[in-house]
């Protein structure tokens, strides 16, 4: 029985009940009406497109998976702990290298200005300056360890973001350039190249004969 036909039958039966009063109808007619309603309900639910149910099921599964992946991303841990930690480490690297550079350059400048009239005193000055330069160079060990920590953090984030993007099928959309990126492009600001200069000094010299 089609849903519309069943509904029409129910409507007619209801009209009859209203017109005559339910208590005057025989029990068999009420049961008959119940059967018709049951048929109508079965027809209605049976008529629903099963593909829609499948779509809802897929969506529910996808949302659950997304929730699991978002949870696995540990965004709060990244935002509250790992990135601030990496930032602190990099600040320390900058500070340590600045301090070491300052020490080394100051010692070198002192050596440049020392008058070698008294050789013994000159040697003592040079030896002392060299020791301070050696000590200052120990920054490299500390900065190396700090940078390793930062790299570890970046790898941690990279792994999670990559897994998240893969699991949810995320694709990149084209983003508008930021003002900073526009400025860098227009003013040819790209910074130092990896593994040495993009154009060697010899090739540059060839352009300035």
């Amino acid at each position: 029985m089609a849903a519309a036909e069943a509904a029409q039958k129910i409507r007619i039966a209801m009209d009859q009940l209203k017109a005559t009063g339910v208590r005057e109808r025989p029990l068999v007619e009420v049961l008959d009406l119940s059967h018709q309603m049951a048929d109508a309900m079965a027809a209605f639910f049976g008529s629903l497109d099963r593909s829609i149910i499948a779509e809802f099921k897929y969506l529910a599964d996808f949302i659950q998976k997304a929730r699991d992946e978002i949870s696995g991303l540990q965004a709060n841990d990244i935002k509250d702990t790992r990135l601030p930690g990496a930032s602190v480490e990099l600040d320390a690297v900058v500070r340590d290298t600045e301090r070491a550079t300052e020490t080394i350059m100051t010692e070198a400048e002192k050596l440049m200005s020392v008058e070698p009239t008294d050789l013994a005193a000159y040697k003592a000055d040079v030896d002392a300056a060299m020791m301070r330069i050696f000590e200052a160079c120990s920054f490299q060990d500390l900065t190396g360890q700090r940078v390793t920590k930062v790299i570890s953090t970046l790898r941690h984030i990279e792994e999670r973001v990559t897994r998240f993007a893969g699991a949810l099928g995320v694709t990149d959309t084209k983003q508008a350039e930021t003002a900073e990126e526009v400025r860098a492009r227009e003013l040819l600001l790209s910074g130092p190249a990896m593994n040495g200069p993009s154009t060697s000094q010899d090739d540059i010299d060839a352009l300035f004969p």
Partner: protein
Amino acid sequence: MAVDLNMPVLVVDDYQTMIRIIRNLLIQLGFKNIEDARDGRQALDKLNGGKFGLVISDWNMEPMTGYELLEQVRASDTLKSTPFIMVTAESKTENVIAAKKAGVSNYIVKPFNAETLKGKLKAVLGEF
């Protein structure tokens, strides 16, 4: 004509360490009058306020880059003949070509050594 080692030289870089390195190298080469600026804007102010015989400038600085400084210098009637050496980590060919077109006197890519700096100074100023 011999290079006047007393002429004012302006070193422009946003890193004090680099200014210090170039300053010390110039002193080693005999230059006596070295000033510095932390970006293109500050450099332009200094250039407009005094007679400099040479500008040695980084490229990547805020708010005015070395390239913008070079353009401003070459566009100025009073400054356009000032020798201008770019010392920068920007080593792409397009950077070098852009600087050359803008009128840079020579171009040194970082990191560099004293010999390279001396060679470029000689190429721009003459023997000293």
